[in-house]
């Protein structure tokens, strides 16, 4: 199986086993209800995370709310 490399929050990241965005969040130890995922600049709804595959060269952003004015 070909190694999958993403750009994840601006950094290159090699996937070990995750094939979908939901599995990626699981690998990162993140609760999908607490974050929002953007795949190649498009928001992926929480309900679609499990069926959205990650592919070599994808750009993924994982964001959440922090303090701000």
């Amino acid at each position: 199986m070909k190694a999958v490399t993403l750009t994840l929050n601006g950094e290159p990241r090699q996937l070990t086993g995750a094939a979908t965005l939901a599995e990626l969040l699981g690998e990162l130890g993140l609760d999908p209800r607490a974050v929002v995922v953007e795949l190649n600049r498009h928001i992926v709804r929480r309900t679609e995370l499990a069926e959205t595959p990650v592919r070599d060269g994808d750009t993924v952003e994982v964001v959440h709310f922090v303090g701000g004015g």
Partner: protein
Amino acid sequence: MREVVSGTETVLDQPLVIAGKAFRSRLFVGTGKYRSNDEMVSAIEASGAECVTVAVRRVDLDRRKEAGILHHLDPARYFLLANTAGCYSADEAVRYARLGREAGFSDFVKLEVIGDQETLLPDVTGLLAAARQLVTEGFTVLAYTNDDLITALRLEQAGCAAVMPLASPIGSGLGLLNPYSIRTIKRRLTVPVIVDAGVGTASDACLVMEQGVDGILMNTAIAEAADAVAMATAMRRATEAGRLAFLAGRMPRRETAVPSTPDRGLLA
């Protein structure tokens, strides 16, 4: 309209309504720059604010202890208003607004499009473009803007639910620099006007509310105070005092004195 109960702070005001959402407190507060999350939570509680602003940022994948703000603020208790702080173009601001809507609990967004790093003053061209786009996407847009009437009018025409002119630059603590502009914007707009940014201490908040605006939003003045909880309390009272003074209607300014004690009955 008003109900008087015994004691202090008793004259009840109308709630502030933005796009059908009612707020009893006219003080909105930010959640940035606090020394600790505990202090932030205590200060927000002391402020009496119902609407608190939050920002969208990358999850820090290396330091998991830097948990999101939802671990500290209960979204059932506070109305979370996502901002687009740090955005320097309309496209960026629209991107952040969409992420905030997806992360959050409403279609409200505090729209900021910044034009200059030193002053953090708004880029009004980008702001108007982003506001128009977000309104077409169904957002309830609260637009952070200059104390400029023409931009404020155009934001209202663009469909913004509230217009948020600055008192002075973000984080400056310079207070209300142009009361005339703020009064004019309030007089000419139909949508709520919420003064956002620049207050430094309680008298600034009071003076802002005395101009008749619908609300006030602040962050640094509370977060950077030596005692944030005490300042949050002061800001709550100042916001109420200024609002009540506006509703009460101040006496006229006179160039000459008028005695408070009767002249009649003076001894010959």
